[in-house]
């Protein structure tokens, strides 16, 4: 289905992604882990064609994604939604408008210039928001929402694209544990219910373990691990993170359960 062959990205001398090979044959939920600077974001940006690969190719259903230009590239981007750590919404616009940005590729430029969207799209946007549990935020400005809500708006925008693949670049890194859980669960639900492929960069091991069917580990631009969560032992993790024996998983955790084990007060989740 998705086949990444020898994908490489160079910034000057620096090799951010080094001949990455990944084969994905079914719409799985995949987590990419690795420490800061490992090349996770760069990989995802190449997948979405936000940046060009220096070498190698990406094939989706045997189409060469890396070769796409202009309209074809934009067409690809619309089928391959992306979610960012900082949400990357338009803060001054209302939530529904932000979600509707997911349809930009399909609509004529002129109509969208004046914010004119078909009524059916608006209904669909609100349905998606409802599915993510934030329908009542619909008329508010995006900047008025909490981080977790904003990320769910970003997911809604992604869903609005009706994409085959959803890429998520550290979607929960800016969120508190409670919101992190809600967002990850949403991604998982989307994967399970809609059967979409989800590839998420994650910087905590336990999240990857808990939500992903398959985990890819990167280190210094290279893929150093590719397997099931079960195969991801502490030893392997130490390898990926290049850490010594003092490495403790809890230090990278953002899960509520992990925190609950310490003395922090228990937090109730309220949507």
């Amino acid at each position, binding site marked *: 289905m998705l086949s990444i062959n020898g994908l490489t990205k160079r910034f000057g001398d620096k090799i951010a992604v080094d001949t990455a090979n990944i084969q994905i044959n079914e719409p799985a939920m995949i987590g990419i882990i690795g420490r800061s600077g490992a090349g996770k974001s760069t990989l995802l940006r190449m997948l979405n064609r936000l940046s060009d690969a220096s070498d190698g190719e990406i094939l989706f259903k045997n189409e060469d994604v890396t070769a796409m230009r202009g309209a074809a590239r934009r067409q690809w981007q619309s089928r391959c939604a992306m979610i960012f750590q900082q949400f990357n919404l338009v*803060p001054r616009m209302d939530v529904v408008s932000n979600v509707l940005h997911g349809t930009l590729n399909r609509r004529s430029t002129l109509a969208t210039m004046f914010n004119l969207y078909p009524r059916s799209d608006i209904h669909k946007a609100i349905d998606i928001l409802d599915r993510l549990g934030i329908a009542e935020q619909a008329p508010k400005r995006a900047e008025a929402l909490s981080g977790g809500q904003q990320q769910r708006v*970003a997911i809604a925008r992604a869903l609005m694209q009706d994409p085959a693949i959803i890429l998520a670049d550290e979607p929960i890194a800016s969120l508190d544990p409670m919101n992190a859980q809600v967002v990850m669960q949403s991604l998982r639900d989307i994967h399970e219910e809609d059967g979409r492929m989800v590839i998420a960069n994650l910087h905590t091991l336990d999240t990857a373990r808990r939500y992903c069917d398959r985990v890819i580990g990167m280190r210094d631009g290279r893929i150093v691990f590719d397997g099931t969560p079960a195969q991801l032992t502490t030893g392997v993790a130490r390898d990926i993170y290049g850490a010594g024996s003092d490495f403790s998983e809890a230090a990278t955790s953002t899960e509520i359960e992990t925190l609950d084990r310490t003395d922090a007060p228990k937090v109730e989740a309220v949507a």
Partner: protein
Amino acid sequence: MTSLDIQASKTHAEGLFRRKRLFAFGVPAVILVYFAYIFFAFDVPGLVQRANMDNARTLTSDIWSHKVHVTRDNRNGEISYAVEGERKGEYPEGKRPAWVSGADVITVDLGGDTIVRFLPDNRTEIDVPGFGSVEAQAEGRTVTTNLPSDLPDWINASDRRVAIATPEGRITLTGSKTEVFNYFAGWELFWFTFDSPYHGMGFGQIVFGEQIDPERRNIIGAMSDFWHNKMWRHKDIAWALGETILMAFLGTMGAAMIALPLAFLAAKRFAPVMLLRTATRRLFDFVRGVDALIWTVVLARAFGPGPMTGALAILITDTGTFGKTFSEALENVDDKQIEGVTSTGAKPLQRYRFGVIPQVMPVLLAQVLYFLESNTRSATIIGAITGGGIGLMLTQAIQTQKDWEEVAYYIILIILMVMVMDWLSGWLRGKLIGTKDG
């Protein structure tokens, strides 16, 4: 710390304070020296000598008062009555002020027992309380009087001209004419001139009273006569104010609309071609540097005098200013939003529309609205050069140096106009930036 170190610290601190003192004295001293140079370069001592305090007095009294001239032409004996001595302020045939009486001997009662009598044979008699009676006769080019040789300082007499200034009014006598000026508070004929049937009518009389002019309903007639007042020219002034605001509005908005697309060309992140970028920036610098003043003169040849020329001058200069600030704002946009929109497969225009415009709009609007107010002032000045708007009326009224009440009227209107524009732009700023979605 050892005592040696302390000593060093102290010396160091003393040095620090010496430097600070030098600076504290130096800056004012430099400014003082500069001011001393200016004092002589601008010839301030000469200016103080030349300053004409009489003019200042005329100005201040003219602003809140008016005078009615009673003039006898000594060659034909005709007597005319005119507000401010102007043709447009002349009393209509057969009418005269209530304080003038008599037929052969015309008696002008200036009040406070000061009385001027126009006698036959170009003779004039003036009663000034506490001084006595002055008699004068105009013959050919000379004036003879019964005045003693040592005169109080409010009388200025030669054989060609006699001027008497009493607290109640002024009298000047020359061979050709004898003039009496009677002063009153307020702006005379502000509402209606003498030829209007509504002159001298109260507000109530006009609004609720009987129909005054059989041809027209009172309110319509009064509005029309007020609007067409020949003395104060309310219609022309309203148009002039309108033209001034129009210049500011068209210039500012036009400039903003032209500068916005150009600013993209001047912003590094949107215009990868360096040459184009630099060219655009230099263009901005050029149109700004040439200044509205010179643009006005240049454009006047192509478009002639009028508000369009002024508007275009503002437009061109501000295109440069806006171009510069807009492109700075564009340089500083946040990438995240653009990237977010891009990642959905949006087309380039859509990227600008949703990734860039919502971010820069508040900055740009604030800037544009601020300029709208400040350009109202510029338009006043540009009008004085290119021949349009309230600016020309004001400068010319000031240059002729007589109708200071009109000058005051214009100044008040200009200040009000600028303040209203200031308020309006502030209000719009709040409304648009506070609520508008990109």
